[in-house]
Structures are given as structure tokens and as C-alpha cells.
């Protein structure tokens, strides 16, 4: 996949969002409607201009180096899964996320590196738990 389809799709999404928000802003009573309408109008115009320029430019190079798209997508999906799992139990979710994350990113896996990954995951989880739950008094989910 080249960069241009992604660029066009994202710019179109921003333009659509601006239109939807402008429709909603139109219903706000003055004087509060002026600022949102002005900002959204300018943003919409700029986005359309960016789309026009993008359509006239060359298709662009490849989006990712071979094999790296999978890494980025798995990391993004993992983060979303972690955001959900974290609300159930912070320590377990964090340890699992870190351990699997390290394993996934390790270039060479051996029993030794897996053990190191588990130890680092445990240490990092413990450090964040101590910092936020114990020191800063945040009630982390458990």
C-alpha cells in the first residue's frame, strides 16, 4: 500500500468530522456558536486544500518497510486490548501485556531471553504499581 490512499482517507475523515461538528455547532445559541463555526470552517477549508494537493502529488512511497506494518498494528491492537483489560486487574493485565510485548518484539527467542522478559515485565509492573498505587495513592483496578 502506498501513502496516498491513507492520506486521502484520513483527510476525508477529518473533513467529514468537521462537517458533522459544524452542523451541530450551527444549533448552539450565539455567541457560543461563532468560535466553533469559524474554527471548523477554516479547518474544513484547509483539509479540502490538503486533499486537492494530495490528489495532484505523486502516489508516494510504500507505507511501511516489509514486515513492520504487522508490528505496528499488533502494538496498536495490544494497547487497545490492554486499555480494556486494565480496568479488570491492573497488575495481571500489565504483566501479561509487557511479557507478551517483549516476547513479540524480541528478535531472537531463547529460554534465557524469555526468562529475562518475564523478570523485566515483573519489575516494570511492580515499579508502576509502587509509584502510582502506593506512592501517589491512585486506586488501580484489582
Amino acid at each position, binding site marked *: 500500500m502506498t501513502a496516498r490512499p491513507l492520506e486521502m482517507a484520513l483527510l476525508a475523515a477529518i473533513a467529514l468530522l468537521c462537517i458533522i461538528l459544524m452542523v451541530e455547532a450551527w444549533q448552539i445559541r450565539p*455567541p457560543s456558536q461563532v*468560535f466553533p463555526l469559524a474554527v471548523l470552517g477554516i479547518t474544513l477549508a*484547509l483539509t479540502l486544500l490538503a486533499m486537492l494537493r494530495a490528489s495532484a502529488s505523486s502516489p508516494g512511497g510504500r507505507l511501511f*518497510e516489509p514486515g513492520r506494518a504487522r508490528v505496528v498494528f499488533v502494538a496498536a491492537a495490544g494497547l487497545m486490548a*490492554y*486499555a480494556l483489560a486494565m480496568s479488570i486487574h491492573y497488575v495481571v493485565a500489565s504483566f501479561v501485556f509487557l511479557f507478551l510485548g517483549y516476547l513479540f518484539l524480541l528478535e531472537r527467542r531463547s529460554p534465557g531471553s524469555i526468562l529475562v522478559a518475564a523478570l523485566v515485565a515483573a519489575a516494570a509492573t511492580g515499579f*508502576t504499581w509502587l509509584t502510582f498505587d502506593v506512592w501517589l495513592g491512585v486506586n488501580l483496578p484489582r
Partner: protein
Amino acid sequence: MLIDSIIMAVHPSVLLLIALGTVFGAIIGALPGFSSVMAISLLLPVVYPMDPLLGLLVLGSIYMGAMYGDANAAILLNIPGTASALPTTFDGFPMAQQGRAREAMLAALAGSVFGGAVGVLVLMMTFGVLAEFSLRFGPQEYFWLTVLGLTTIAALSEGNLVKGLAGGGLGIAISMIGLDPYWGMPRFTFDAPPLVAGIHLIPALLGLFCVAQVLSSLESPAGDRRPPEVGRQKDALRKVLGTMVRRWDVMVRSSAIGVLIGMLPGAGGPIASTISYNETRRWDRDSRSFGTGRVEGVFASETANNAMVGGSLIPMMALGIPGNVNAAVILGALLSFGMRPGMSLISDGTGIATAFMIGLLISSLLLAPLAYFIIIRLSILVLRVPRTYLAPTILIFASVGAYSVTNSSYGVAIMAALGIGGYALRRIGIHAAPVGLGLILGPIAEREFTSSLLIAQAQGSYWTLVMRPISLVLVALCLLSIMTPLLLSMRDRMRKRRLAPDSEKQQ
């Protein structure tokens, strides 16, 4: 008052936090690909529950430390920790290859301490004067001042003004989600109850500056980076201090460049260090030897780099216009603490502003022993840590931080959404800086605009929005800020066109 502020800033617990912030900033700054703004954003949730002075001092110390720390990767790996340290690689890396890594690292440290201290001293001398001047400002002037801050997007948008400004608009649009500040009615919430509370600034900044950066770092394989051994080089400190005294002109000139460039909205560390390096080379009798391991080259880059810290905080603290993204995030923290930049920082009776500046001066001076005994050793160790372990750990730290400020998974969801969205936008050339700036300055711009509008309606003329002496100057500066990159790119295109026929003729 001054004595009270000094007492506040030198309290042992404050000094300890300043030291920790400086070390943390230097370590993150040393990691190639992880910027100073990421270091500041990452600790926003930690400082959020703190006393405002402590919180601001931790962030300021991180900023100071990160601007120094980026030199270590530049010298040892030829990879600048941040873009500001690029000119440090020109002479720093050749020095390391010649077995003078220790000398280069100490030169970077000496330059950073000198520049950092000068920058903060200038901040201390000018902040009050500029803040007092801001008393002449009404809502109209504040609105245009915020617009001027937003036009720094033009300088931050790395060659694509249209996309940069669109990103800024998107940032303002995101900041508008929640309750309408005038009527108190929900807007842009799509009937989702959690959105009524608005988009919390800290998770949003964590997403834009940490998550997007981490995802971006995963685009290339981790690779194997082994920094060279740093030899003992016993006379390194004596040599560096000797050159520093002999070449005081380099130190003074680079500091002045750093402070002045730092004060200009949008022009940050990379511009300051590059101009400083070029000027030092230009004024040197043996300019051709630059790039082969001249210690003055490292001085020039690093002195300007750290002098820029104080410079960028001058317009931020006095007027509310951040000099760069780092200052913008610190402004975000200032606003989160319920404080307002300008004269109110001086007249609030707490002495926080003075204590903050004194603490920042301490941070810049404390950098010398901290780096000499701890940071240099730690940086070499950290540079050996495989990136495999960094990315997931930073994501966890950012997530728990986002959770802590909202006490719910809502913060983590905001962070993840803006992080992934910010990463996608980055791929199409809309960088996090303009979106983040829009997010921080949007609510201020809206408040001042609505007030100005009401005044204009009461006075019966909308011209009062613009037709005031200071407003007119600010409008002109806004136009200049937008037009300068456009004119510069037009000039470059014309020059390229002129050169193209010449090269064809030569072929």
C-alpha cells in the same frame, strides 16, 4: 518575597525532585527517537497530584535534563537523541572515534550548564517586565496573542503549512468536546456521557506525544546499537574547562543565540543549535577544521540548546505563548494546576513563579555534578538497553498515568485513541505538535474570543476586535508568522527553478 521563594526552592524535598527530574529527562533525552516532549508528557500524570511548584519544577528539570541528555547519543552513536543535538554529532562523534568521547561528553555538559544557567537568568530578568506589559492587554489582545501562539504551527509543521494548520484546527476541535463554556450545555459529545466531561488534557498529550512516538519507533527494526567504550581520558575535564575559558566568546554568543531563538514562537532547539554551530564555525579562524572533532563545535550546539530552555519559557510564562512544544506542554500543566500565565503568576502572592525560576537555575547548575557522577554512566548503560524493552514499558507507564488523572479507564481510552489517531496523522504529515498546541491553546482562544465578541457587541462595532494598537501589532505578527514559511518556500522553489536550466546546460 524573594527570600520566601528561595526558601521554597532550596527545600531538601524540592532539591531531590529537581535532581530526579533532571536525571530522568537526561536519560529519556539520551534515547534516540524519544524526544524531550515525550519525557515531559510521560511525567505529567505523576506531577498532576503534586503541589503546583513541585510539579512545575519537576517538568522544568526534565526539560533542562532532556536538552542536555540528547548529546550523549549524538556523541557515542552519531544518532542525535533529539533533533536539537544534530549539530553535536558533527564534531562530537569524530571526537568519540578519536578516543575523546569523554572530552566531548564533558564539553556537552559544560556547554549545557553554562547555556542553561544563562537562559534562566535572562528569564528571571525579563519575565517581570514582559508580564507587567501584559497588564495592558484586554480580551482582544489575549485572543490575538493566542492566535499568534497557534500560528507557531506554521513553524512546527515541517514544510507543510496547510496540513500543520489543519492539524491545529483539529486540536482546537478536540478541545471543544464537552461543556460549552458560555452556556454550560454539552456539545460535540455524540450523546456519550463520558465525553461531557471533555477531553482531559493530560491523557490526550500522553497519546499524542508518547503513544504515537512509540508506535513510530516500531516502524524500523530495533537493530543492534553498541556505543563505543568511553575511555578514562584523565585530562578531559581540565582540557574542556581550559577551552571553555579561552573560548568564552563561543559560550556567550551561543547562549545569546539560544535565548533569542528560544523566545521566538515555534523556533526551537534544532534552529538554535544549528545557527549557533554555523555562527561559531563562521567566526572561527580555522573554520575548515569543524566537523573533524573541534570541541568548540560541541560547545556551540549544546550551549545554545540549553540556553533555549529559559528563552522558550519567557513568552510562555509572561504572555502564555509557548516558545516551542516543550514549553506548550508545561503551559498545559500550568493551566491544569488552575494557574494563568502573565502578571497573575507574580501577583498571586504565592511566589511560585520566582521559586520556579530559582529551581530551574538550580536544575541547570545541578546538572554539572549529576551528569559528571551519574548521568553520563547511566546514559551509556541505557543506550545498551535493547529497544525491545523500551516500547512496551513506555506504553504501560503512559497508560497507568492516563488512568491516574481520570481515575478511570476513560483516560486510557482517550490516550489510546489519540495515540493511534495521532500516529496515523503523523504518517500523512500532520505532526503531533500542531494538534497538541491546538488542544492546549484552543480553550484560551475560545474564552478570549467570546469575551471580545461580547465587548464588541456592547460597543456596537466589531472593529474593536482588531482596531486597537496592540491588537494591530499582534495581527501583523500573526500574518508575518504565517507568511514567512510560505515566502521562504516560494523563494526555495524559485531558486530551484533557476538552478534547473543551469544544470541541464552543464549536462
